[in-house]
């Protein structure tokens, strides 16, 4: 509960800093705009998880919603993939190896441009 309250306070703090920067090029804001978008996360044992981006914390742990797990059926590539549905999952930062978001080409450029 206290954590949420603090989050709210920091939220306001971010907003005010956002107000001073009308571009919205603050990375937190940009990531917030990625919420509910399809995100593809790779983990260290070679599996991939495709779900809607639901939450992220300061440590970089990610929560995905309506997730599908993809994995190859053979150690070596290329090989056919198997998939299954998992629902709500949490991917710890420690095992995350890649992270991609589904977006248009134009958006990609703006997303990836970081404040100097």
């Amino acid at each position, binding site marked *: 509960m206290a*954590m949420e309250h603090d989050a709210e306070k920091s939220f306001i703090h971010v907003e005010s800093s956002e107000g001073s920067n009308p571009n919205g090029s603050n990375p937190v804001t940009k*990531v917030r705009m990625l919420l509910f978008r399809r995100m593809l996360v790779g983990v260290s044992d070679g599996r991939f*998880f495709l779900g809607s981006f639901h939450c992220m914390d300061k440590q970089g742990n990610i929560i995905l919603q309506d997730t599908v797990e993809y994995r190859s059926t*053979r150690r070596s590539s290329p090989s056919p993939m198997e998939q299954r549905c998992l629902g709500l999952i949490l991917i710890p930062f420690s*095992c995350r190896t*890649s992270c991609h978001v589904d977006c248009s080409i134009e958006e990609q450029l703006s997303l*990836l441009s970081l404040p100097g």
Partner: protein
Amino acid sequence: MAHKPIESEARDPHVPVTSSISSGENTVWADVTSLLQAASQGLQEGELIHGDNFNLFAAMSALEIMDPKMDSGIVCKYYSVDEAIENGAAPVPLSFDKTIDVQCTIDIMDHLLSCEATWHKGHSLAQTVFSCIYLLRLDRTSSHAILHSYCRLIRATCKAVISVVSDARTHEEEDLFTMTYGLPLNGDGDGKCLSMLNAVEETISRQLRACKAPSSKKRVLEDIEPLQPNLDLEEGYCKALLCRLRFRKHFYHVLMCMRRPQGRGLELARKHIASCLSELECIYKSAEFLRSSACGNCEDGIEDKTTASGCEPIGFDASLNSRLSAPTPPRAIRILNWKKAIEYFKKLLHHLDIICSYSLDPSLEAVLRFVVQFQKPQPDLVARAHLQLLLVQDGKLYGRDPIFAVICRAAALPEVVKNHDIQKNEFVVQLGQLVINLLKILCTNAAWQRRKLGKILQDWRVIYVQLELAFKTEFGEMSSITNEENVCVKLSKHILIWVEEQTYWIASRFLMLGFELELYSPSEYCMVYWYIYVVLIKLAEKHHLKMVMSNDTGKRKGKKKRDSPKDVARDYQIPPAVLFLQCHISLAEGLTMLLAALRNENRVFQSLGPFNTEHEIFIQHFELLQQACIPDHISYLSFKDTTAYAQFSTLVMYNYFKDALRLAKELRSSFSNDPDRMAELRKIEQVAEHNGIALNVICRVGALDPSLKVSFEFNHHPYFATAVVRRS
């Protein structure tokens, strides 16, 4: 920042993601790793990026990836079954050395037996029987006749067992049993599996004969290729294989025979059960030979091994199936060791044999007694499912006797009534449903059974009221005294009395199961025995009334020469069944008063807990009975009234235990043909005798002597306790 190809971004070389997992039309996968990192730095400690609908509490239920307790998809040794096979995890043949091939085949058969027993005991199929890679890809084994036919048959057996348990719907109690989660249980040509196995059995039998024949005859039998090249081991291996194959075959036959409707296959099933048991003996005895000829060091921890030889079987991997078990990983299980597996099957076959020997008695009372007796050794799920399917088929008893006819017989009505139209009445139909439901409930495990029995008490109470009303409506209009009216009056009276009797029977079972499940603490025994006492009194009363009513009608018909009141009085004896109940009543009463006296005088066995008063505990235990008014006008106050003044001085005078003992001894002659009731009478005698002695000791020593310690143990009877008196 230019977009780099995904492969080089990743820490490990992976399958190119974009080619396998498409993003969408006119969209691409954009790498956001650095963006996320930048955002992390911008966040405050404890701050989260989330949407408006975010609920922290709900988010805590997310599965954590790479946590072995939550993530069932973690890649371990093999990515898939096919990869495991490609890497030689399940070779066919098992070895090019035929001796080793035979040894390994036997090990697989033994391990499968252990897996099967583990599955029956309540674990998932995926982690047990279907942890066998050979079973997951059965067609691969077609070149290996022995393994192939065995696997085919075990698959067909599993399917048959699942079918029985699903139909009986007793699997609700055990979660994992029937879930197959897409395991390959259906095979084409499984109907031919028996003939395949028979062919293999025939070949091995010939090989056995050939190796035992004296050398002169060997020339004639030279066309038989031996099972394996080591001639001094040939006999041992042939026998070991034969008994395993034969056990499988006979077990399958048992299941098929027992499934035949109306118990038609029971006699044949018994023969197959006998064969199974004898083959199990051979399997058990083969262990010595297999251990001694086993390859490698298989000596350590022989007790826990799942095979007779003690060697680990090849071709098993439970983790390959973990994704098929459930979204979350199944908890780790231990496969039963081989000896325990054999014991399990012996016990199962023994219980199935009891079912097959049952005489299909048309009397409901006999069925209920049989089921209660059957449940005493706590049989496992598979046996209970078979019993239920035998008793209830197509809404009839044994698939043969319509429920209304069963009810009429139970209500001591004459045979001719069973065709009466009243059976179409909706409440009579409902009564039939309640009876069927009761039979199903009695076949479940003790905990589930007690819960369900408690719930149906209300239904039985309600149906009584509804039937009373229905009978009045249907039969009430008849004004003239006709034969038809007599029949109707008799019908309604008998059925109503029987419904009451049955309700009290259910109540008594409910209370007694509490002892079996250890739901009562010693400070609560007093009120439990008191409640059993009041319920049993009602049960005996209704039972007796029913018998008197049927005797009256019988006597009225057979009225011939002598019917003087003196003769009638002399002829009438209380039926033994009622006296049998009276034994129990006396014991219950005795125990109630003994416990009450101990509480009143010694201040022991009191309910003095800080959380509940005795009144609250009473309500908790007997709420369902009280709500259904079973019996009527019974409450906590009645209990207090009865027990408040119990003293040892009065107890010695009204010695209920003496009554019970005397009655039990007298009843021996009435039940000499009934071994179950004789056993029960013996137990009652022991409890009565020991409690009587304990009572005398307490009175002699003086109830207030502080060195006296009284405890209650269930060493003579499962629910009537024996008082044990100790001087400290």
